[in-house]
């Protein structure tokens, strides 16, 4: 047969088949209806919808791309039904298309979640897993996906560590269990483990190369029964990210776009020039020196420079994302390209990301499936504003300094009397200093899945994360008044990191009539490596020539390192048994070996078990239609953590240069050979329910996790010569296993469709998390043992961890007003030196006098000394919650998302500097309320205690003295503020173009929207933002000139083109 003939025969056969269908239709006097069923949430097609003709037994089911066709008589009613969606009825009028958009009542019922090396229906899950869809995630227009988790997932505390574009967030799942081992969860993206975060403190965020647009869903694995399969890196929970993949069907082309601007939400109230001058004059009179002739008449001065207004700007951001996906039965593909650009609200900061993703799945033969997920990303970040500390400078620099002088040169401090710190001009610093980081990241995996039999398969996976980064710095010569830099210098560094995982596992599934069994067994090895080089020179011939080889070769310094990071090898297995679809049992076992420990401590076992009871499948509930799901889950497990740097079990020698040798060997750390795994006992109980066809669902988990042998880089007293942080010349403190910490709490989520009518729906989601952290034991120091954190602003302990309280509670004196009357000196104890002698009451140096702060004598011994300190609250919130409301009306949608935190305290370190009248810095307006010390009889003695009083005794601001014997700024309750807040994270209003318009322009979906992120904030906190993230639980809740979160206004569109 020639080809033409072949074609003709095929044609004829199809005609015959079509004829048969026509015949059947004609017989029933029906018309043919076709159409497509999509979700009202995101316009995605819904397969598997049942379409029934009311009053008949006839019906059909929608296909994989959501399309259906059915024959029905005109006048009959079609009923569209799908679990988790509100049913819809449409009367047939004539032949043709009936496209249907179903409103979801709950997506939770049909959800598929990741359970570690496998997927399962949420119904069949025994562990505690929360999920969030990509659509929900994108509501807040996050720069990075981790920012968007806040308030969305019960039990997960997300706090922004820096508001800098692309800046990091700290994520804790169910509390702080480790003190200096990492508390951050394990991130797994399409099976690729993202290596532990190296140094997030600088504002760089390793997760920021991932485009939130490409995420299909995020699953958060919380309890031990869910995480144990991931082993030792998973003790703090696992965040599994699944990216979108292609589906068989006609190609879909999607274009997402948004554009907007960001602005600072709140400025701190600093003095203007007139107030400042008036204040300096008043202080000069008391001090008897530091009089500024230029301030003599404040009236004639202007308002001066408002440094915050100069530094912060309205900053634009733009995002473009184009995705093409589709495929056939054998091959599915998704190709996505995106570009994102964000300027920071502080000048000198920006973030740009360009990325390309390819997800490909291929069924090569009937027994082999192969595929890949591959992402290339380029991230470029200007981090100058953080690196140069310009926000701190903008707050510290006084209003008498101009941004630019009349001649166009940069302004700066011109009078250094009075120990004026040489604070540089922040605007100039932001403009002229270069601090550019670029990162190219490739990460992806490659898998082959072999189906031996219907039940048994083997999956081989190789995944890798390759990161190439450069950092260019240049500081030019500059003159900002008396702040002068006469030598320009620059450095350049390059580094590359690799992290590879090889993983193989067998899966066996079998249905023995009433039993269903699933077995998993596998092996995994992971290893990292790094290489970097660094070069520095100074004395460049010009500030415009910044390439490193232009600098003076004799000033060159260089460095570099290479090596392999942590290596880990693991064996793992899991058994799932389900009986009668009522009782589910899961058991996990995993053995991990880590290079982080001395060889005697290297291997450890992790195990867990869980049981779930699907109560709704019991006979006694089978008949109750309104209960769709009721499931009880119980789980227990032991997990282990290795989250410390490598080689802490030996003393590392570091090469240093001194006058005796260029290669003298310096002891870098105090070693502890005995350091071993941190162990967590984890109990979890949960109840899941869904009612009324999923219109109401909830999930409640209570847990108790006890971590013992905590890995701690122990902050010993200074006399140990070690530091857990950074202190020049101190050895790095040893890692030890110490004590015990308990986290108990609950996570609760409830979702409801309050109203669901044809044109209007209203849905609410609420999440509430509560975690109580208690230190049960702190090791060898006994009752006296404590972990203390010192603030360098006041050179004193501010946070202290002791047994019986939560980790890192604030610690200090209790503020009790200022000395205002002679009686105050009688009723309040005076501070004493270490010998116990109180300082004299005297206006001269070395004495305590009116206007000094009073503190409570808590132990009642008549003096104020270190024993009068107490605990002043915890930076850990009592509750965290998120409330999401979404409305749709016809083609409009509105989303309103609130998140909040209750019961936490914040240490307002920034305010100390700026409310201290003895500092020479810009002051908060509040400083004008300084204690006014007056003589009762103006002719009398100024040092007679009975002749002096304070006219504004209610003030908190210290009087003007050139003496601080009282140590007025000692750590005290005045600096510890209420950090509770309610933040409107997001308001979005969208509009979807009606089908009638879309069909004309060959577009299947077109939605435009406007969003306000961080719309408002309700808080009593006086600083910029009470949300203070930290990676160090011993130093949580410290607000120290922090890059604030902006308020963002965006408009955008999502367009899906049809074929």
């Amino acid at each position, binding site marked *: 047969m020639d080809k033409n003939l072949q074609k003709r025969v095929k044609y004829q056969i199809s005609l015959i088949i079509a004829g048969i269908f026509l015949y059947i239709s004609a017989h029933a006097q029906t018309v043919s209806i076709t159409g497509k069923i999509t979700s009202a949430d995101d316009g995605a097609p819904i397969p598997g919808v049942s379409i029934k003709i009311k009053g008949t037994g006839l019906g059909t089911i929608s296909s994989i791309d959501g399309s259906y066709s059915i024959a029905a008589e005109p006048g009959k009613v079609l009923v569209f039904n799908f679990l988790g969606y509100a049913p819809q009825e449409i009367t047939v009028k004539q032949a043709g298309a009936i496209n249907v958009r179903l409103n979801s009542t709950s997506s939770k019922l049909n959800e598929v979640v990741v359970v570690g090396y496998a997927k399962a229906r949420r119904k069949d899950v025994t562990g505690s897993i929360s999920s969030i869809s990509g659509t929900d995630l994108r509501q807040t227009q996050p720069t990075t996906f981790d920012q968007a988790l806040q308030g969305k997932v019960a039990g997960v505390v997300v706090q922004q560590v820096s508001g800098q574009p692309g800046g990091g967030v700290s994520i804790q799942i169910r509390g702080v269990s480790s003190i200096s081992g990492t508390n951050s969860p394990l991130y797994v993206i399409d099976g690729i483990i993202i290596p532990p975060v190296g140094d997030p403190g600088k504002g760089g965020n390793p997760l920021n190369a991932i485009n939130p647009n490409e995420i299909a869903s995020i699953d958060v694995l919380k309890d031990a029964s869910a995480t144990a399969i991931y082993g030792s890196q998973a003790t703090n929970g696992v965040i599994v990210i699944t990216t979108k993949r292609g589906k068989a069907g006609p190609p879909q082309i999607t274009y997402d776009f948004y554009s907007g601007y960001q602005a600072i939400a709140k400025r701190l109230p600093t003095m203007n020039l007139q107030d400042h001058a008036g204040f300096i004059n008043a202080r000069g009179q008391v001090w008897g020196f530091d009089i500024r002739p230029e301030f003599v008449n404040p009236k004639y001065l202007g308002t001066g420079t408002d440094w915050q207004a100069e530094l912060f700007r309205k900053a634009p951001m733009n995002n473009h994302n184009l995705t093409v996906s589709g495929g056939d039965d054998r091959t599915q593909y998704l190709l996505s390209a995106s570009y994102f650009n964000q300027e920071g609200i502080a000048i000198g900061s920006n973030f740009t990301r360009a990325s390309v993703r390819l997800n490909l799945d291929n069924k090569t033969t009937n027994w082999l499936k192969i595929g890949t997920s591959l992402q290339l990303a380029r991230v470029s970040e200007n981090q100058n504003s953080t690196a140069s500390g310009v926000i701190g400078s903008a707050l510290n620099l006084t209003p008498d300094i101009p941004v630019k002088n009349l001649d166009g040169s940069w302004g700066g401090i011109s009078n250094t009397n009075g120990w004026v710190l040489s604070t540089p001009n922040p605007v100039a610093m932001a403009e002229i200093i270069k601090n550019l980081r670029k990162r190219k990241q490739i990460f992806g995996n490659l898998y082959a899945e072999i189906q031996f039999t219907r039940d048994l398969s083997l999956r081989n996976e190789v995944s890798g994360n390759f990161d190439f980064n450069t950092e260019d710095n240049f500081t030019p010569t500059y003159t900002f008044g008396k702040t002068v830099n006469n030598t320009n210098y620059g450095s350049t560094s390059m580094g590359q990191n690799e992290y590879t995982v090889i993983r193989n596992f067998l899966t066996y599934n079998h249905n023995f009539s009433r039993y269903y069994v699933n077995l998993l067994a596998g092996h995994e090895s992971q290893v990292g490596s790094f290489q970097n080089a660094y070069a520095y020179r100074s004395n460049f011939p010009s500030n415009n020539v910044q390439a490193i080889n232009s600098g003076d070769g004799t000033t060159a310094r260089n460095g570099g390192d290479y090596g392999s990071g942590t290596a880990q090898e693991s064996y793992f297995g899991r058994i799932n048994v389900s009986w009668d679809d009522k009782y589910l049992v899961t058991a996990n076992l995993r053995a991990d070996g880590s290079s982080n420990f001395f060889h005697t401590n290297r291997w450890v076992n992790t195990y867990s078990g869980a049981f779930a009871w699907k109560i709704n499948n019991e006979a006694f509930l089978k008949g109750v239609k309104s209960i769709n799901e009721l499931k009880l889950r119980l789980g227990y497990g032991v997990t282990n953590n290795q989250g410390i740097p490598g080689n802490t079990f030996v003393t590392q*020698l570091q090469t240093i240069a001194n006058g005796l040798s260029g290669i003298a060997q310096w002891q870098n750390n105090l070693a502890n050979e005995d350091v071993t795994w941190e162990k967590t006992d984890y109990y979890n109980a949960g109840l899941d329910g869904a009612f009324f066809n999923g219109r109401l669902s909830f999930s409640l988990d209570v847990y108790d996790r006890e971590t013992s042998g905590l890995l701690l880089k122990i902050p010993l007293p200074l006399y140990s010569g070690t530091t857990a942080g950074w202190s020049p010349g101190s050895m790095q403190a040893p890692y030890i296993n110490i004590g015990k910490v308990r986290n108990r709490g609950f996570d609760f989520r409830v979702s409801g469709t309050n109203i669901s009518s044809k044109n209007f729906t209203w849905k609410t989601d609420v999440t509430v998390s509560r975690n109580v952290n208690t230190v049960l034991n702190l090791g060898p120091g006994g009752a006296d043992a404590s972990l203390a954190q010192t603030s360098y602003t006041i050179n004193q302990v501010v946070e202290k961890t002791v047994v019986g309280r939560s980790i890192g509670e604030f610690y200090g004196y209790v503020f009790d007003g200022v000395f205002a009357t002679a009686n105050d000196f009688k009723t309040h104890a005076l501070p004493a030196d270490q010998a116990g002698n109180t300082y004299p009451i005297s206006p001269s140096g070395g004495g305590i006098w009116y206007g000094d702060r009073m503190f409570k004598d808590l132990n009642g011994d008549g003096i104020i000394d270190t024993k009068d300190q107490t605990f002043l609250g915890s930076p850990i919130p009592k509750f965290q919650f998120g409330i999401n409301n979404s409305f749709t009306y016809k083609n409009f949608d509105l989303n309103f998302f609130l998140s909040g935190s209750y019961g936490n305290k914040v240490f307002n370190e920034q305010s100390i500097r700026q409310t201290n009248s003895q500092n020479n810095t810009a002051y908060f307006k509040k400083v004008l309320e300084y204690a006014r010390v007056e003589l009762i009889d103006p002719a009398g003695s100024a040092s007679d205690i009975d002749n002096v009083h304070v006219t504004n005794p209610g003030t908190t601001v210290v009087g003007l003295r050139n003496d601080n014997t009282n140590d007025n700024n000692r750590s005290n309750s005045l600096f510890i503020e209420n950090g509770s807040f309610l933040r409107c994270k997001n308001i979005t209003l969208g509009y979807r173009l009606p089908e009638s318009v879309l069909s004309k322009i060959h577009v299947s979906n077109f939605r435009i929207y406007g969003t306000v992120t961080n719309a408002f904030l309700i808080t009593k906190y006086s600083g910029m933002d009470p949300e203070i993230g930290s990676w160090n639980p011993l130093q949580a809740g410290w607000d120290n000139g922090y890059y604030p979160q902006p308020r963002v206004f965006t408009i955008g569109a999502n367009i899906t083109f049809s074929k």
Partner: protein
Amino acid sequence: MKPINKILVFALLAVAFTACKKSFLDRPSNSQISSNNFYKSTTDLRLATASLYGGSHWFAFHSQSMLTLGDILSGNATFPWNGDIVQLYTRTITPQNAIISNGWTGLYNVIAQCNTVISAIKKADPSVSTADKNAAIAEARFIRAIAYYHLAVYWGAVPIIEDNAKLLSDPLLNRNVVSDVYKFVANDLTYAAQNLPKTDQTGRVTTWSAQGMLGKVYLTMSGVDKSGSRDQALLDSAKKYAGNVCKNSGLALFSNYYNLFKPQFNDSPESLFALQWQAGTGYANGNAWQTYSPSGDINPGKNGAWIPFSPNYELYQLYSEKDSIRLKASMFLTGVHYPELNAAGGGFTATMVAMKKHIIGNEKDNNAPTMDFWSSPEHNSVLRLADVYLIYAEAILGNDASTSNGEALTYFNAVRERAGVDHVTSLDFNTILKERRVELVFEGQYWIDLVRYSYYNPQGAVNNLNNQKRGTFIYDKATKTAKRDTTFVAPALPATISSFTLPIPASEMTADPKLAQPPVPYY
């Protein structure tokens, strides 16, 4: 599935489940050697002890506290624009003072390095000879003794730590009584004196360093817990060791006092122990004393002249007219020209009165291109021969009111002669104290002298502080006259005997409540 595929698949499976090699989990660092496998030869031990002579562990004490505690606390100078320094000068020191915590932290950092080196050397490869091991341990014990000596002088009773690893199981320590701290220092130095060589690489300590220091320590100990007179046996020990250095070491004073503080004459034979700083080590690793410079013009990078100490009028008055060499080497006087500072720019004419000692000019003056104001190449002495000469004289004077002992006079006058001033014929305590103050000014020594005095004559030491005529001065070069200036001088609290003991840093008291308890014996 075809058979060939099956074979392929099972081959894959076999590969997949093969465990990694045992060494897979061994991941030692490539850039850092570990102490467990490093100490294989004498050369290795030398590299370990070399690090003790200078580096970041010395930074906190050296950059912040050595001169401020030694010379500002004792009234040699002031600086009005820094609250922490003002507290030292006015005796209103609070436990939050950063100079106090830096001094404490810094000295214990040095001790931690010494202790860790000592334990590593003890475990070194058996092929290294015992003598070499002992010599290396002696170097570390010498430097540890220096740190404990300063701790005892400043804070009195402090915790003694010999093995930092023990802190892992027992982190909270009591203070040890001051006499035991000195005993510990003397033990370390005795070991050092016995095991150190007579000569070594330039810059390394020798037995003479240890014996000189031992003289100083015994002289200090002779007054502890005594009233009125000192312990004669300890005075004799001081005399023995100091005298041995004076007479038998073969060392002599460096010819030129002015040049003694120039880096080109680093580690002259007069230097018994000097910190071995190097240029270009960056912030927190080097000698940061150029931040005490009075003018950016003479600093490397023309920057960092932040805290120029203003010398006291009383101090200035101690220099006789003939004592011009030591005066010029110690203080900038307004209008005086220093050709060697910023030489390429025509030298430097002082515009204010300020500390001169240790201000050595810029990177070109010192032929050190990598020098910045955080890394001066000056090897500042902690112990030098002139100090030991004066110790010897004081030890001979002992409990006598005055002496005209020939040896005491010989060595005392050697110091004066080098300075170009007249010999004396008789010595008493005040002559020696004044000589030490002038000779060793801005080397962190005067407070040590006053504390030593306070041990056996509290009232005398208290009076010394209270009778000081404080205040800076204005210098007129034309008339070569100085006028006292009290504009910036905050009045000081009257000194008492407790003024001689610094408060323990506040954060340390909070971290270890046991420090508030009375000190306990160590031995």
